[in-house]
């Protein structure tokens, strides 16, 4: 006896098949090059010889540590600089929002090489005009004891600049979605000062935006090559490039490692975000916590 399938079920089967097909194709598109790279990396003198060489190289650890430090510094600096600025503009200076949006888009228009040469010129040989416009800050940082030109702190600041579009937009969107103005007024009506409102009311609610901003800044800084090269700072991408010129198997292995490292960081951030979202959404929330 022939079995008949209802139209709904057959439609669902068709949809399931098509969805799965596209998913498989996308995964193939993404994973095959990675797999090929891994296979090439493992096809050196012996199975894991390239990884052994990498992990026994001091430069690997030094450059990785440098890049991680720069990425973390740039991420923290970006968040600390942009979050309160975006909040303040939204609450007190809404007319300046347009200006801030334009400023945040400028890094897209400025190539990294132009940025680095500009920074090196400004901090390397500051002139009178620069001193005036910077209220004396640039000459102060350019000379001893800071002598900031060509140093990791200046490179971190440069990373902050190039990450500006990726930081401002998600945070601003989060603030707008939150209706930060009304919540601020609610906080004020309950006796909270600006800091308490920002820390206890605003920040917890724009956390997803901040996470997105952090993610993008971190990954941008970890993978940035041009600025670091021009600054003469030996970061992980520079090491990757150097290794690639000497041993393609090592370069391939390093690339896979770099990808996995970034993936782990991204997954960790996403898990953190999801955990916070789940905690906020679940019934039975937490006990009243006295805010100290």
């Amino acid at each position, binding site marked *: 006896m022939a079995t008949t399938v209802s139209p709904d079920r057959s439609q669902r089967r068709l949809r399931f098949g098509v969805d799965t097909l596209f998913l498989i194709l996308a995964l193939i598109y993404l994973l095959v090059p990675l797999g090929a790279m891994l296979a090439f990396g493992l096809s050196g003198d012996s199975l894991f010889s390239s990884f052994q060489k990498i992990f026994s190289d001091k430069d690997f650890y030094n450059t990785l540590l440098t890049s991680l430090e720069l990425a973390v510094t740039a991420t923290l600096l970006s968040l600390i600089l942009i979050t309160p600025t975006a909040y303040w503009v939204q609450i007190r200076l809404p007319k300046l929002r347009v200006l801030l949006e334009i400023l945040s888009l400028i890094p897209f228009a400025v190539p990294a090489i132009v940025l680095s040469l500009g920074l090196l010129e400004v901090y390397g040989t500051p002139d009178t005009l620069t001193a005036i416009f910077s209220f004396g800050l640039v000459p102060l940082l350019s000379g001893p004891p800071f002598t900031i030109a060509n140093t990791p702190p200046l490179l971190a600041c440069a990373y902050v600049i190039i990450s500006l579009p990726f930081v401002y937009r998600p945070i601003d969107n989060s603030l707008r979605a939150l209706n930060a103005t009304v*919540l601020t*007024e*609610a906080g*004020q009506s309950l006796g*909270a000062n600006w800091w308490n409102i920002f820390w206890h009311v605003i920040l917890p609610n724009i956390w997803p935006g901040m996470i997105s901003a952090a993610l993008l800044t971190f990954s941008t800084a970890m993978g940035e090559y041009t600025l670091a090269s021009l600054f003469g700072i030996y970061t992980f991408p520079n090491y990757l490039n150097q290794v690639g010129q000497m041993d393609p198997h090592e370069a391939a292995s390093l690339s896979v490692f770099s990808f996995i490292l970034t993936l782990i960081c991204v997954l960790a951030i996403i898990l953190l975000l999801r955990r916070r979202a789940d905690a*906020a959404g679940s019934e039975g*929330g*937490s006990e*009243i916590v006295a*805010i100290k």
Partner: protein
Amino acid sequence: MSFLVFEDMVKYFGKLTAVDHISLSIEQGEFLTLLGPSGCGKTTMLRMVAGFEQPDGGRILLDGEDITQRAARKRPMGMVFQSYALFPHMTAEQNIAFGMNMKKLPSEHIRKRCAELLELVDLAGRGRHYPHQLSGGQQQRIALARALAVEPKVLLLDEPLSALDARVRVSLRNEIRRIQQQLAMTAIYVTHDQEEALAISDRIAVMAKGKVEQIDQPEEIYRNPRTAFAATFVGTTNQFTGTLDSAREGLCRIGNQLFQIPAQPTLADGAVVLVVVRPEEIALHATDEAVDTAQNGRGNYLDGVIELRTFLGPFTRFHIQLSEQGKLTADIPSRLVEGYTVGHRVQVSFPPEACQVLPLDQASQAASSLLEVEAI
């Protein structure tokens, strides 16, 4: 001295005068409503009391103390917002506790007070729910509890029911009033809904274009409006523009007909007036019946045709096209409307005492023309 005093308050937004030299005072424990259309300045007044807007002139005195320049967070006010403004990442209990946490009160006291307030707003057991897990009405109750938690001297409510559906609005406004009376809390309520204002206020300040048109008890505003705006904004009205034929005898010419109105000793013959009649003051007669009533000689009688009949439960609303004076709305008890149908020729009548007569100067004419009066 009154508990809360506004002295000559002024506020500009660019070229717009949002609040135009308003002075009023509120007694302790009073529930005052600021009622008016959008843009009349009522919310601006409230925000100045809360400290979110700085006045460009005038003073605010609370219990004799000038708080005009005081920061919002230092004013002893609690505020309930139209959009609830609950903190989304905190439970209901944590929202209520927030203000007490800011004051660094002991944890045990906070816990106890939260339980009391949840009980007060009828949401005991919902303390651990997050705002998105509560209905709109429940959220607003939590917002009310949160505002009360800091033991404010004045409770400010900015159109708290606007975002709620009609049924919840009615029950929640009664709850707000009950709680306010139970706590003997001084409250300032802002709304554009006249029914809300009439139902729960001790006094209503009717506002238009930055000014207070009339401040009085609800019944007084409804029965004896002192300006054309107050007459037309509060309640449904029928309005006729006429000229006083005899102010002393109370005769007003509207169209080609002479109306009997209360004597107007303060007005002169020939003055242009607005005659306002509430729909519930109007009686409906079949045209054959009108012959007998006209012989009594007292009252105003107009001929018309029923254009629309709307059953509203206890009363039925008729929209009648009059022969000469335009359209008229009449609310008749539903038990008396049998036989009156659309297209029926009728006569309407109302006694002179039902007429509220207001001098119609240019400003009042302009104010009246801006309103959408529910005559149709």
